[in-house]
């Protein structure tokens, strides 16, 4: 190799080496900033993923409801007739709110004036075993001075359902045992879906 060519090679090698060192230093400094940005974005992503997981749980719950063959809640009057003897409740709708996909949340107040309080748990059990279920939100019991075991029971129950009456914007007058679910009969067989174990539905795979 000619001395000139060797000198050029050595000069190039030195220049490239210095360039490499410079590039490495610049990259290291930039990577520190980039790593911080990635860390922030990853944190954002994990928070969004947590929201998505919650949303998926909600949607899975909606899907369970969607899979019901009958989407209308059972009539509380019918249930009370079957579970509670010698007492007719006053039933009135407290609130109704539109939910997603045509579903409605109804909150009903069921008041038994003089009732054998021991029969209330049976009524509640029957209501909660319905599909879609009635859920007890608040329960107020007051014993009567007339006789042991008798008393007044005021139950606030809610259910998610489709069909029936349109939700009212304000409280409706007392139904007096004729709740608006004419198609719904007496307490039917329990649905085999996700309520048996009362487990929170898992989000669908891939969601």
């Amino acid at each position, binding site marked *: 190799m000619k001395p000139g060519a060797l000198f050029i090679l050595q000069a190039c090698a030195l220049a490239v080496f210095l360039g490499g060192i410079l590039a490495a230093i610049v990259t290291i400094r930039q990577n520190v900033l980039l790593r911080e940005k990635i860390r922030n974005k990853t944190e954002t992503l994990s928070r969004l993923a947590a929201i998505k997981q919650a949303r998926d749980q909600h949607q899975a*719950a909606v899907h369970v409801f969607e899979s019901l063959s009958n989407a209308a809640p059972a009539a509380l009057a019918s249930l009370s007739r079957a579970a509670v003897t010698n007492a007719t409740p006053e039933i009135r709708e407290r609130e109704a709110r539109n939910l997603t996909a045509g579903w409605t949340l109804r909150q009903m107040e069921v008041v038994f004036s003089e009732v054998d309080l021991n029969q209330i748990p049976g009524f509640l059990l029957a209501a909660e075993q319905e599909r879609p279920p009635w859920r007890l939100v608040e329960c107020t019991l007051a014993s009567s001075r007339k006789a042991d075991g008798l008393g007044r029971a005021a139950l606030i129950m809610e259910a998610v359902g489709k069909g029936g009456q349109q939700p009212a914007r304000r409280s409706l007058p007392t139904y007096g045992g004729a709740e608006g679910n004419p198609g719904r009969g007496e307490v039917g067989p329990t649905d085999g879906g996700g309520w048996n174990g009362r487990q929170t539905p898992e989000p669908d795979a891939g969601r």
Partner: protein
Amino acid sequence: MATSEKLLYTCRSTVPFRPRICYGVALAGAAAVTVRAWRSSGGTVRQAVLTPGDAAARRQELAESAQNGCATVGCLAVQDSLTLWLNSPLTSRAKAEKVLPSLLDIQLPFPLEDCLYQFVEFRRIPDGTISALVCAARREAVRTCLDRYQAQGDDPMMLDHEGLALWTQSLAELPSEPRRQPAPYRVLIYLADDHVTLVIGCRERYGNAHSLQMPSPPAADDGLIRRLQLLLHAGLPAGAGVQWVFCGARAAEPSVVETMHKSLIKDWPGPLTCHKEPASFLARALCERALKRGPLRCNLRQQTFTHPAVRRAVDRRARAAAVGILAAGLLMAGFSLTSRLLGEHRFARVKAEIAALGAELAPGAAIPYGREIPEVQKAWEKQALLTAPFLDAFAPLLAPRLAEVVKAGRASAVRLETLNLRRNSLVLTGVADDWDQCGQLEQGLKTLGYTVKLQRQEAIAENEVRFTVNAEGGGP
């Protein structure tokens, strides 16, 4: 000759490559002694003396295998060169290296530009200054030496120094005794056919070398002995113990060796030792020094006299170093670029995932960059209102809790008058026959997980105790 010196540097290799096979050629008058040496994979050097016929075949082999780690080494006779210890007044080796050529120039009887030289060893002498051993030869002497080799059909890649070669080989074959006191001097007398070389040293420290013409027959010439004694008087203290070592072609003649030894021990008593195979001693030394790293290595075939193969090897080494540095630079640049690209790719991927997830969670919303969380949260809060009741349907029921509360009341034998149960609160009023029954109820509710606040009223007109329970938490 100082012996309490500290060795700072000794030249351990002069070849830019590691030859595996070496031919050492020592010229003695018109003849040449050639030794072939090769280094085995274990590092052991094996040697064989070549006959003149072998030497002719060797030249052919050498011509064919010049690129294959095969080297030929010759030497410059002591009479054509010099070795000299130069003492600098400086204590720094780096500074001493700068002034030593000037000191050498002062010592030389000819201009420094006319000679080739190499500093082969640096020592710190007791006063702290630097002493350096230089080996030098006139350019003309080097040219003449190369011509003599070429007349023999050889073109040595390296020109070693005869005195240094003899000294290191003598130490290799007869190691000095480092702990012996007083310090043993060693005088190596190389008896070639045409000259005598005298090398003086102490322990492992090389002192100096001298050369004399060899008379024929040597034993009959008292002049040779007298000249040797003159030289030795200059280099050795009178009466010092000396190890006399003989080698060279004429050292195989016992009468010559014994006569010289008897004459010399009168002034410097000491034992006589002859090296084995003395005729090939110098050629062996040249091979050993070329094949193995060690002290006092020297090559006076420098500058314009540099052998083309050595020059090519130096070029190759410089080229390899440059290519290595180039490759290192390219690798660093490549790694930097790759690292940066990978980082940016990852960042872009995370951003895309965020954008996709944001669009999925807040469909139809225009989400500004960096505002994903608030926008999605806002959209989700709106949506959750519509779907939360579905999930609530799967929460634990309140009816069993009602049964448990009633059961706890029965267990404590209290009469409940009013009961208000919500998901996370419970209010009870009632009466108890006994103050402690309320405590049992309180305990039972705590067992259910409630934080209970119990208020009891002292019975005034009646025996019964009225109580109120406000309980929090414990919801199913």
